[in-house]
C-alpha cells in the first residue's frame, strides 16, 4: 500500500514494489555470497569426517534441483495465466510450483536427517557447520517462498488476484526465481565440485 497505489507514474517507469523486490534480491545476493564464501574458505579444512564425498547422495539432490528448476518455469506459466486472467492456468501452474517447492524441501529434510544419522552435525566439523548453515538458510528462504506462494494461491482461489493485481504475484515469482538461482550456484559449488 504505497502512497502511489493508484498513480503508478514512477520516475523509472518501474512500479515501486517491483523495484523494491529487485533491490531486496540484490541485497540477498550478498547474503548468500558471504555464506558461499565461508563454505569455500572451509572446503577441505575439516579436522574430522564425515567428509562430503562420503555422504552426499548426488542423484537425490539432482532430482530436487531439477524440480526446483522446473518450478521456476511453472511459476512463469502461472504468472502468465494470472496476467491474462486465465484462472485455470494461473492456479494450476501455481499449484505445480508449490508442489515442487514441497518436494525440494522434503528432499532437504530427508538429506539432513540422513546426514544426521551418518554422524554429521553442525558441531561435528567445519563441513557440517558451513554446509548446514548455507543450505539451511537457503531452505528457509525456500520455505518462506512456499508460504508466500500458498498465500497467493489462497487469495487467487478467492478471486483476489485479478490481472490488475498481478504485480503482487510477480513479486513472489521474482523472489522464487532468486531462490532458484541461488541454488543453481550452491548445487555445483557444494555438491558437484570435488573436495
Amino acid at each position, binding site marked *: *500500500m*504505497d*502512497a*502511489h*497505489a*493508484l498513480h503508478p507514474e*514512477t*520516475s*523509472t517507469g*518501474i512500479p*515501486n514494489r517491483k*523495484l*523494491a523486490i529487485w*533491490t*531486496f534480491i*540484490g*541485497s*540477498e545476493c*550478498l*547474503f548468500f*555470497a*558471504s*555464506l558461499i564464501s*565461508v563454505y569455500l*574458505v*572451509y572446503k577441505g*579444512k*575439516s*579436522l574430522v569426517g564425515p567428509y562430503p564425498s562420503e555422504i552426499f547422495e548426488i542423484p537425490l539432490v539432482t532430482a530436487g534441483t531439477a524440480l526446483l528448476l522446473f518450478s521456476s518455469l511453472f511459476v512463469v506459466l502461472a504468472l502468465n495465466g494470472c496476467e491474462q486472467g486465465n484462472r485455470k492456468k494461473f492456479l494450476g501452474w501455481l499449484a505445480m510450483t508449490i508442489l515442487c517447492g514441497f518436494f525440494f524441501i522434503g528432499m532437504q529434510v530427508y538429506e539432513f536427517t540422513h546426514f544426521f544419522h551418518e554422524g554429521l552435525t*553442525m*558441531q561435528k*566439523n*567445519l563441513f*557440517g*557447520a*558451513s554446509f548446514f*548453515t548455507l543450505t539451511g*538458510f537457503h531452505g528457509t528462504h525456500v520455505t518462506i517462498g512456499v508460504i508466500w506462494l500458498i498465500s497467493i494461491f489462497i487469495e487467487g482461489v478467492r478471486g483476489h488476484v485479478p490481472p490488475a493485481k498481478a504485480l503482487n504475484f510477480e513479486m513472489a515469482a521474482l523472489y522464487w526465481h532468486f531462490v532458484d538461482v541461488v541454488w543453481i550456484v550452491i548445487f555445483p559449488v557444494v555438491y558437484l565440485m570435488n573436495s
Partner: protein
Amino acid sequence: MATSVLDHAGAAGIHPEKTGLWAWITTVDHKKIGILYGASAFIFFLIGGLEALLIRWQLMKPDNNFVSPEFYNQLFTMHGTTMIFLAVMPLSAMFFNFFIPLLIGARDVAFPRLNAFSYWVFLFGGLFLNSSFLFSAAPNGGWFGYANLSSKQYSPGLNMDFWAIGLQILGIASLAAGVNFFVTILNMRAPGMKLIRMPMFVWMSFITQLLVLLSFPVITVALILLMFDRLFGTNFFVPLGGGDTMLWQHLFWVFGHPEVYILILPAFGIISEILPVFSRKPLFGYTAMVFSGCFIAFLGFGVWSHHMFSTGMGPIADSVFSLATMLIAIPTGVKIFNWMGTVWGGSIQLKTPMYFALGFIAMFIMGGLSGVMHSTAPADLQQTDTYFVVAHFHYVLFGGSIFALTAGAYYWWPKMFGHMLDEGLGKLHFWLMLIGFNLTFFPMHIVGLEGMPRRVYTYPAGLGFESLNRLETYGALILGFSFLVFIFNVIRSTRSKVHAPADPWNGATLEWSIPSPPQEFNFPVIPTVHGRDPFWDEKRAQGGKVPEPARVSGAGIHLPNPSYWPFLAAVGVLLLFIALMHHEAKFGPVYIFAAVSVLFFSIFNWVFEPAEG
C-alpha cells in the same frame, strides 16, 4: 473502498489523532518518523557521550581505579557501538526521512509503513543493546567483536550475545530503510528532476543506501556464524575445531569499511547543501562531486584489509590494500577542493550552519591526512591499535560526521520545527565544540605515537602519558558542555514561539518553498523542476523573492493512513530475537513460536490492510 472516519478524513487531507502517543506509534508520515529518529538518536548520543566521559575520567590519571577493568571494557565497547549504530546512523536517518521526500518533491517515501517499521526496529534494537547494562552484561568485546575473544570460551557471559543479537536487530532496520530510500530516490522524483539534477544530499544518501544494502548482509552472516558458535557449539571461529579467526576479521571489515562511508557520505551531502546557500553561489563541480561520491563507495569495498595491516597477510595483500587506500584519498581530496571552490568567490554568510560546515572542512582535512598516514602499511605497524588511530577516526567521525550533522541540524531546524535556533548560542556551541574537540583528540595523535595502545583501562605512571591524557579529559568536559549549550538553545527557542519563515536562509532547494514546518502533504502541487537549484531558479524568475507560502487545505490529496502493524511487527522482531537468545530456557521453543506468531500475524495484517483512496 469501505467508508470510515479515516477515509473521510483522508479525503480532507488531514488525519484525526494528530497528537498524543498513539499518533506517534501509528504514524507513517516521513517527517514524524524523522523526528522520532532524531530524538532517539540524540538521546543515544548523549548516552554514548556519557560513556566517553567515564572513559576519559578513568584515563585522567595513571593506575586509576575509578571504574573496574570489566566495566571499562563494557564502556568502550558500548561507546563505539552506540555512537556508530545508535547515534550517527540514525541522526543521518533523521535527515533522510525528513528531507529526501522534500528535496525530490515527493509527498512521502515509497513505503511509509516499512519506514515506520524501520524506526521501531531501530529503537527496540537500541533499547535491547542498552538493556544489557541492567544485567551487568553489557557487551565487552570491542565494537568489532574480534574472534576468538568473542567465543563462548573466552566470553562466557551474555555480553557478546547482547552485542551480536542487538546488531542483528539493528541490521534489519537498516536494510528495510535501505530498500525504502533506494526505491524512493529512484522512483519518486518530481517531474524534471533527472538524476543529474538531484540535490547532493539526495545523491550521497542514495549511494549510502546502496552501501547499506550491499554491506549489511555480510555482517549479518558474520554475526549468524558467531551466534551459531556461541549458542549451538559450531566451530566457525573456534581454533580447536579448525575455525579461522582471520575469517571473522575479513567478514567484519568487508562490512566495516563500507560502514564508515555510510557514516560519512550523508555528512558530505549535508555540507554540499549548506556551503552553496551560505556562499550564495552554486556547488562547484557538481558532476565531479557526484562521480567522486560513487567512486568512493565503489572503492570502499576494496580497502577493507587496511584494518588488518598488522596481521601479516603477506606483502602482496598489504601492497594492494595500501595502494587502494591511497587511491581513495583522491576522490576525497576532490570533494574538499570542490567545497573550497564553492566558497571561493562567494559572499559568505557566517551563520551558525556555515560555522559548523567550515569547521567540518577543517577537521575532516586533518582526519583525512592521518588516514593517508595509516595507508602506508609499514608505518601503520606502529600506528594501528594505538591512540593515533583513535585520533584519526574521531577526526573523521566527530570532526566529520558530527560537525556536519550539527550543521544540518541548525540549517534544517527552522524547516522541521517552525522556529529559529538562537544564533548567539549556536556560535557559542560551535566554539566550545571546536575547542573541546581539538583539545580532546589532537593530543591523541601524539600520545599514540609516543606509545599508548588502544582499549587499555589504565596505564602505568612511568610512560609519560599522564599530562596529555589529563588535557584530553579537560577537552572532553568542554566538548560535553558544548552540547548542554545546544540543549539549552533548543529549549529556549522552542519556548520563545518566534516563528520561522519558510525560507530563512535564501535556500536553493525545494524544501524552502513550503511552509515551516511543512504541512502533512508537503507540497500543495508537486513542482516541476528545471535545474539543480530549483528554488533559486524560481526566485530568480520572479524577480528575486517569492511571497511567504500560505498553509492550504490539502483537500483531495491522498495520504497513507496511520497504522499500528509496523509497530507490532517490530515488537515481533524484538520478541523473536529475545526468544532465540534464550532458546535453551525451559519453554524456549514456546517463546520462539509465540514470537514468530506475533511477527507473522502483524505482517499478514499489514499486507492485507485496506488500501487508502
